[in-house]
């Protein structure tokens, strides 16, 4: 599903990623954890083709993203659901329009748009908020709307960048539960987060990053002790 082979990304003289290798199989649920600047966002940008590796190979859904032609990229992205960290929703459009916007942008006809929007709104529990503007939504509702838009096209791979940022613990867990439900329906899910509580509670695969490298990869567990040690040493 996703494979990174010895991938490095260098900005000027700074290494954002150093020889990272990672493999995610179909149907997995993976947490990507690490402090700010650890390289999580860089790794995500590689996965959806916003960035090219300086060296190494990036394979997503069987496609070599390290050498994909720009005109082929949109068609690959249609098979991914992407929940970006910044500004997930368009502020001048209602929840319904936000979800429909994505489908219209990739050429769905109006009948299909109406069907799919209704289905995903029901799935994420936002039927009643369909006509509300993003500014009228709570943080959790906004994230659910962003997730709804990302999965509206039935993507086999869902990538969510910090979907629990700035959310209270209960709402954060609601979001993770939603993502796990989507995972149970067959989608591979990769989520980046700082939230140790939900990582511990979800008990899924956890990949930890620090300074552009993967420092641990636990198949099924909680927040990695390696990161705790690192933070402790920094604090001391």
């Amino acid at each position: 599903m996703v494979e990174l082979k010895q991938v490095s990304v260098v900005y000027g003289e700074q290494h954002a990623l150093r020889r990272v290798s990672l493999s995610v199989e179909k149907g997995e649920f993976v947490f990507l954890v690490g402090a700010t600047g650890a390289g999580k966002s860089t790794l995500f940008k590689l996965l959806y083709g916003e960035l090219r590796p300086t060296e190494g190979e990036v394979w997503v859904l069987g496609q070599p993203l390290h050498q994909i032609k720009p005109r082929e990229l949109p068609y690959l992205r249609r098979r991914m659901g992407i929940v970006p960290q910044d500004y997930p929703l368009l502020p001048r459009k209602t929840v319904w329009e936000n979800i429909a916007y994505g489908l219209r942008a990739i050429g769905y006809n109006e009948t299909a748009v109406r069907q799919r929007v209704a289905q995903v709104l029901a799935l994420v529990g936002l039927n009643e908020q369909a006509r509300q503007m993003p500014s009228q939504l709570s943080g959790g509702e906004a994230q659910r709307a962003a997730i709804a838009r990302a999965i509206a096209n039935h993507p086999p791979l869902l990538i969510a960048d910090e979907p629990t940022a700035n959310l209270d613990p209960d709402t954060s867990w609601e979001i993770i539960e939603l993502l796990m439900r989507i995972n149970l329906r067959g989608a591979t899910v990769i989520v980046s987060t700082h939230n140790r509580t939900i990582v511990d509670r979800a008990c899924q695969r956890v990949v930890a990053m620090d300074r552009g490298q993967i420092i641990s990869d636990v198949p099924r567990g909680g927040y990695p002790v390696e990161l705790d040690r690192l933070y402790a040493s920094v604090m001391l």
Partner: protein
Amino acid sequence: MIDRLRFVLQETRESLLRNATMQAAAISTACIALVLLGGAGMALYKLDATAQSLPSRFEAEGVLKMSAPRAQAQQIKTQLEAMPEVERVTLTPREVAWEQEKQKLANDVNLADLPNPLPDKLTVRVRDPQTLPAVSARIAQSPLVEEVIDSRKELQTVLEVSRLVRWIGLGAGGLLLLAALILIYNTVRLTIFSRQREVRVMALLGATLRSIRLPFILEGMTQGVAGGVLAALLVLLTAAFLSDYVVSQWPFLKDMPPGLPPLVVMIGLPGLGALIGGLCAWWATLRYVRI
């Protein structure tokens, strides 16, 4: 396909309404540039048509000496008709010319009792105005010809005015067109920046570059068309007003050939506006819309 078109048009409309001030600036600059270009174009067309329609452009008159016998005048006529450059030659006998002159001036002067002062006259029409100087020179060679009259000087004046209008119109219109190009380019660029979020969302959802760029290009074309329509109206109104004024001042000009048909202006200027607006927007999206 209709859904897709509706989506693109909706996005274009939203963008146009969102940046009203910038739109107004771009549209007015495009309008001014197109007014100058259109005005110059119309003036050039009219001057050119006037120059083309001047009979003197094709004709020279050989005024014969009073002593020239009619038979020899006929001979010269035959010689001139044999020239390949010459389309036709008309010999106007002095009696006929005098009758015509008397009729022309009948309301002002009574010429009935005066002796005929006019000589015979040969009017030579050439096929190509370029050959007129050579034919005039050929007529002047005859010892029976008193003088040769052609209107090269008047024609030259029309052509010089036409040249002046062309340079002023092209120069000023070109500069303003460049300003309009830059302004439309800048408007679209700023629109792209203000819609980075939408652009990124569309790109991450898998929209193709072409479908992301299209609303911006349509926006630029709309600005160009709006500027072009305004420019066409201004040009036509100004032309109508000026035409009335010129004829009221110089009535003999009422027989000037008509200018560009209004439909050509109403289609041409918005069309040119759409072209430059679309090109500018396309150029801006090439540089600033990335996936």
